[in-house]
């Protein structure tokens, strides 16, 4: 079995015409994968998260063949800077705006970038941020990813429209991989959207995103997980944020039955400013776990986190977030807030905030609230003529609004709002 998988990985690499170093990295990652034990209940990170459904021994490169459902794009093509779509393992760039072309922005499949931008990719893919040694899932992705997206925003380039990455899956495992790198003083918005039809969903999706935010640049990265009904999904999303750079990530969790997100931002230079935002709307039997890390490794940097879960049915959410301030990271300013709203008595939300402060001149605070809808809010809205359903949906909208507010790009914000409302009102997101 193992040797077969190794051969399959070599075949995958060869068929994509990948350079030797990448083939070797895949093989090395597979070795790490095989020698790293699967997560168990006894690991702190996995205590509340059941991974017994994952077929760890059956992991193999995704087979080509199955054709993902044809889903409508989340926005007008022309409202993007660049639109890259991956269907299964096949990547195509559907649109590049004149603005993006003039700015010299590169948006291509990661496989193509291994050739065209070989040095950058070799330097940054699975090295500092999400190496295979980070864990079994990261190793699995590093060995098995296919297609992938590479985004490079050159120094000083400022894009006014978002770069959009759409990943469409069929009913086969999928291993998306994204590498974003912004040059000094540049500015860009990136939206990545994972989708499948309700019926044909990937049993296992395991994606990995690495964001390198260069000095004085601004990156907003929004991720939407909108798999169909029974998908099981893992997302690793690690960022490093340089001096005077600004990063906002927003994770929107809507689909699948299982989702685990490992989200981290490392602040490496003074003046770095990070916002980590998240919103999940879960119903039925859905489960979502977000582990976040705000890692202050420099003086004079700020991070602010807001994760909001709205739970219906018998859904469950886990939020576990750590603020870590390294010993020399004086004058760090870090904030973390998790809000959970239960629409019924059935759901459950676990919230585990953690501070690890090793410096003495810092401002770090966190807060967590879990509540049900206040009957007095329903009464107030009712007194203005809104029926129960309308009032509830307005309150849910309002609960997500502070997160939507933090998505800087209006096109991205509106696409996300539409997807959330579609789920809320029970209409297909497509």
């Amino acid at each position, binding site marked *: 079995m193992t040797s077969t998988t190794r051969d399959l990985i070599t075949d995958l690499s060869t068929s994509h015409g990948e350079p030797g170093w990448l083939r070797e990295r895949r093989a090395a990652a597979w070795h790490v994968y095989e020698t790293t034990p699967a997560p168990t209940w006894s690991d702190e990170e996995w205590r509340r998260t059941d991974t017994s459904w994952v077929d760890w021994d059956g992991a193999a490169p995704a087979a080509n063949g199955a054709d993902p459902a044809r889903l409508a794009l989340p926005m007008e093509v022309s409202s993007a800077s660049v639109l890259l779509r991956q269907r299964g393992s096949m990547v195509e760039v559907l649109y590049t705006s004149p603005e993006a072309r003039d700015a010299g922005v590169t948006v291509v499949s990661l496989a193509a970038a291994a050739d065209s931008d070989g040095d950058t990719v070799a330097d940054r893919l699975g090295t500092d941020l999400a190496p295979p040694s980070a864990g079994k899932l990261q190793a699995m992705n590093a060995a098995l990813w296919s297609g992938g997206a590479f985004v490079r925003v050159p120094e000083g380039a400022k894009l006014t429209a978002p770069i959009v990455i759409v990943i469409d899956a069929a009913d086969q495992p999928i291993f998306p991989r994204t590498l974003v790198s912004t040059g000094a003083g540049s500015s860009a918005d990136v939206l990545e959207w994972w989708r499948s039809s309700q019926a044909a969903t990937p049993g296992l999706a395991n994606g990995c995103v690495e964001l390198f935010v260069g000095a004085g640049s601004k990156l907003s990265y929004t991720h939407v997980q909108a798999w169909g009904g029974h998908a099981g999904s893992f997302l690793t999303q690690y960022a490093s944020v340089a001096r005077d750079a600004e990063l906002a990530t927003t994770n929107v969790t809507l689909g699948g039955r299982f989702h685990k997100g490992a989200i981290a931002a490392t602040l490496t230079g003074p003046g770095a400013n990070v916002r980590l935002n998240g919103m999940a709307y879960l119903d039925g039997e859905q489960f979502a776990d977000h582990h976040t890390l705000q890692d202050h490794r420099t003086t004079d940097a700020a991070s602010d986190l807001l994760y909001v879960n709205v739970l219906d049915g018998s859904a469950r959410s886990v939020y576990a977030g750590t603020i870590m301030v390294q010993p020399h990271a004086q004058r760090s300013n870090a904030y973390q807030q998790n809000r959970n709203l239960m629409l019924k008595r059935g759901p459950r939300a676990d919230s585990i905030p953690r501070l690890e402060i090793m410096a003495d001149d810092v401002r770090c605070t966190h807060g967590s609230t879990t509540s049900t809808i206040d009957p007095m809010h329903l*009464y107030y*809205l*009712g*007194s*203005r*003529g809104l029926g129960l359903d309308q009032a509830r949906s*307005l309150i849910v909208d*309002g609960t*997500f*609004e502070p997160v939507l507010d933090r998505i800087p790009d209006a096109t991205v914000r509106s696409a996300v709002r539409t997807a959330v409302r579609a789920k809320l009102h029970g209409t297909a997101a497509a």
Partner: protein
Amino acid sequence: MTATNGQTTLSIRDLHVSVEDAEILRGVTLDIPAGEVHALMGPNGSGKSTLANALMGHPAYEITAGQVHFKGQDVLELETDERARLGMFLAFQYPAEIPGVRVASFLRLALNARRETEISVMEFRRLLMEKMQMLRMDPKFASRYLNEGFSGGEKKRNEILQLAVLEPELAILDETDSGLDIDALRIVADGVNRLRGSDLGVLVITHYQRLLNYIEPDRVHVLIDGRVVESGGKELAERLEAEGYERYGAAAASEDA
């Protein structure tokens, strides 16, 4: 379905209301004809806010006896939102703070709930700005979250803004004057006065006579211990201001006025 002047818009008959098994209203009877402004005065604890909330259908208030008709309909049968769509409005003493819900988007939904056809975004915007100008509110107010972080005065002004936009046929103002400085009080009273006309019935609930200097009532009712003990013209309010509620007996005198 518009009531004409002189017709009774709201009719309350022998209303008994309990909260957590304690009887607060003990047989209230009151009529408010369309186009009239009635004041309901009384000491703290006399049941003024209970009446306001019972009329609007607050879930914690139990109607144990009596009847309430509005425009001829038995409203005790109706849910709160149905009463609102029928034309009843309560300006709350303590309006709820609803985070994330913007004043403008909420108010447009509320207005559409009362209309047969949806108001266009542009038309609504124009209406909202006109009413905000009338109440001398900063246009930025429209995009703020509903009552969140509002001062006491801003909340009250926001209640009157909703009244002005929704144009109900009955407005109950529950201690709208409390927490308002004199300038804000004038602006709010001006707003209410402009809405007075042949259709709107108003029930002004207040502890003090002050508000009634600006919103002149057609009738004044005194509520003591869950019952209306006296009704009269606007001179009754002036007398209460001078003499207090002591003359109505021990139960009232024991309240801190």
